[in-house]
């Protein structure tokens, strides 16, 4: 017997003893006829508005799955809570796994909170689907084997909008000022934006990092005017975007405002006539395909308003999780990871199917640029966006807009 295997044996023995001593209640719970799943999204703070849509989406998915007999005959026990901030998010994630017996976790919009939950997932060897976080770093240098990423990363958003802007002649030789959210997501997005500007012959003449709790942007807007850019670029998040766009319209600057990040929930909160420019989105409720339309109809009927992109992403993620558990007949992390790493294709209510890339666990899917409908053409207050053509264009490989292996420093430990 080699020394190595003896140590492994000892470890296994200790682990077994530990589990039988303190962990037995958890095992008993796990054998109950319910599958416990932990869900965290921010319901307070600057991402709370879109988080509330996310929670509606996940509730609907769980109810549908349970109504149709659950997963392998077991009902889903969904624990959905407010993640609040990165520290609380990781504490709650830990508690959901340790005390509440969650077999896996999903959710989150804040990249900062998502990062802390990813660390909890890795430590506890439980799968975590990060649904709404967009920082490149999460699927790049911070990636780990237990974490999957459903939303499009920052680089894709920059590519989706950038392509549309280039077609309008708004990039080459132009002077940009960026306003950026001051946390991991914003820093990451600014990095992607800078790479895009320098690759496309545009200059960045000013960048402002803005704390997430800022609600009055007027001092920043005065600085923007001082810089006199050709284009103003918004790299903010959540409530910040809504506030900026409203106040940008208030001051009425002549410089066009575009942005590399927007959630439709934030756009709906802006009020008539405030938003203009070109922005990216991952999904929109007017997408023309049968699955999407059926979902939108069911959601609107249930909640009296159309689903926002975070409602959609929580909904499809729980459906994918349910499918994975059903087909693998297991809630074990290894089995689930193997299932997704086969690059199984999923119908995610878009023109093309999506799949999780095996080496960085990114859900590869279409993205869309959009512009704003002129006043008077809107059917209702939710009907304010005109989707552009899907990116990448039909016929091109989906992966062409995602960072390549050389660009994305993801190195998962086995």
């Amino acid at each position: 017997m080699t020394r190595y295997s003896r140590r492994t044996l000892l470890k296994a023995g200790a682990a077994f003893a530990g589990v039988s001593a303190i962990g037995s209640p958890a095992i008993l719970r796990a054998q109950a006829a319910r599958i416990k799943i932990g869900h965290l999204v921010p319901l307070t703070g600057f991402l709370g508005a879109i988080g509330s849509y996310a929670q509606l989406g996940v509730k609907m998915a769980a109810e549908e799955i349970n109504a149709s007999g659950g997963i392998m005959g077991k009902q889903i026990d969904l624990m959905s809570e407010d993640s609040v901030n990165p520290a609380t998010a990781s504490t709650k994630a830990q508690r959901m796994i340790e005390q509440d017996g969650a077999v896996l976790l999903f959710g989150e919009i804040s990249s900062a909170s998502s990062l802390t939950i990813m660390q909890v997932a890795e430590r506890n060897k439980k799968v975590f689907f990060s649904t709404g976080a967009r920082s490149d770093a999460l699927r790049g240098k911070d990636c780990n084997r237990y974490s999957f990423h459903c939303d499009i990363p920052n680089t894709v958003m920059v590519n989706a909008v950038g392509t549309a802007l280039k077609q309008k002649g708004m990039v080459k030789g132009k002077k940009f000022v960026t306003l950026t959210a001051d946390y991991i997501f914003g820093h990451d997005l600014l990095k992607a934006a800078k790479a895009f500007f320098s690759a496309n012959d545009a200059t960045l003449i000013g960048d402002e990092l803005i704390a997430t709790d800022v609600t009055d942007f007027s001092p920043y807007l005065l600085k923007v005017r001082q810089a006199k850019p050709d284009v103003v670029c918004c790299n903010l998040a959540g409530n910040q975007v809504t506030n900026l766009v409203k106040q940008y319209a208030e001051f009425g600057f002549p410089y066009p405002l575009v942005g590399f990040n927007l959630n439709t929930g934030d756009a709906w909160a802006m009020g008539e006539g405030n938003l203009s420019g070109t922005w990216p989105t991952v999904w929109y409720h007017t997408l023309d395909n049968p699955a999407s339309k059926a979902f939108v109809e069911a959601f609107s009927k249930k909640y009296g308003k159309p689903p926002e992109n975070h409602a959609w992403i929580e909904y499809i993620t729980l459906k994918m999780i349910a499918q994975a558990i059903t087909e693998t007949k297991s809630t074990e992390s290894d089995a689930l990871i193997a299932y997704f790493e086969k690059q199984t294709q999923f119908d995610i209510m878009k023109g093309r199917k999506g799949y999780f890339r095996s080496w960085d666990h990114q859900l590869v899917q279409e993205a869309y640029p959009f512009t704003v409908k002129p006043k008077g053409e809107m059917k209702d207050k939710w009907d304010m966006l005109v989707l552009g053509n899907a990116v990448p264009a039909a016929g091109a490989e989906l992966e062409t807009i995602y960072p390549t292996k050389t660009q994305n420093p993801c190195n998962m430990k086995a």
Partner: protein
Amino acid sequence: MQFGFLLEQVVNGLVLGGYYLLIALGLSLIFSVGGIVNLAHGAFYALGAYVSVEITKYLGFGSAIVLSPIAVALLGILFERFILRRFYDADPILSLLVTFGLAMVTEQAIRIIWGAPPISAAIPQAFRGSVFLGDFLFSRYRLLILAVVAAVLLGVWLLLHKTSFGRVVRAGIQRPDMVAALGIRLQPYMTAIVMLGVGMAALGGAFFAPITIVHPAMGAEIITVAFVVVVIGGLGSFWGVVLAAMLVGVVRGITIHFAPAAGEASIYVLMFLVLMMRPRGLLGERIEKFE
């Protein structure tokens, strides 16, 4: 060149300060008269915003700005009559708890009535855009806010200093027992002051709804700044609050101009510095109710 932009930031800061003033002055008045630290003040601000958006839909922005503060001020009467009145002579901790509870109940009520996602509001077309004075820039809408704040400020000052109502209120602040001995019931005056304070908070909400996000937690956001202003100015001091509000607005604007990262922290640093030098705030004289 640099000076011009700096002046722009100063003026913009003054306008923002004027807006903080609407909320902080009411807070300060209610404290002075009743000795109540009203943690529900932010909730009335949020209600003002929501009600004004609702009214705008049917009667337009102009009516909303007038009717929303009145509607919320009427709620303020109920607030004073059924809740605050019980706590004037009680331990301040009790009124802190009860108004904090009320703030949470109101936020939840807003969530139930209007939903958790923010609702949208827009500036009327006439007030969009900037006004230029040479190279000097102003937001047209904020000019409107400034004008209204100045009018309200003047009105409140006149009310407190030039009317018999004001004389009783000020006497009530200084010597409640003496006023009572003269046979004047302070109760109706307190109702009026609470109504006034709550109405001003609602006016602030109504004015900011078109340029900031209208969501259930907006009251909790504003209350912190309002307290900072009141503490810097000195509890219970009219001009202290005015001075502090302007100072907070200007300091924030200038900090963002030169050191953006410190922008939000600047007002807390300012509070710290002021309290180090004047523990009772810039113009605060006494904190009798707590002593």
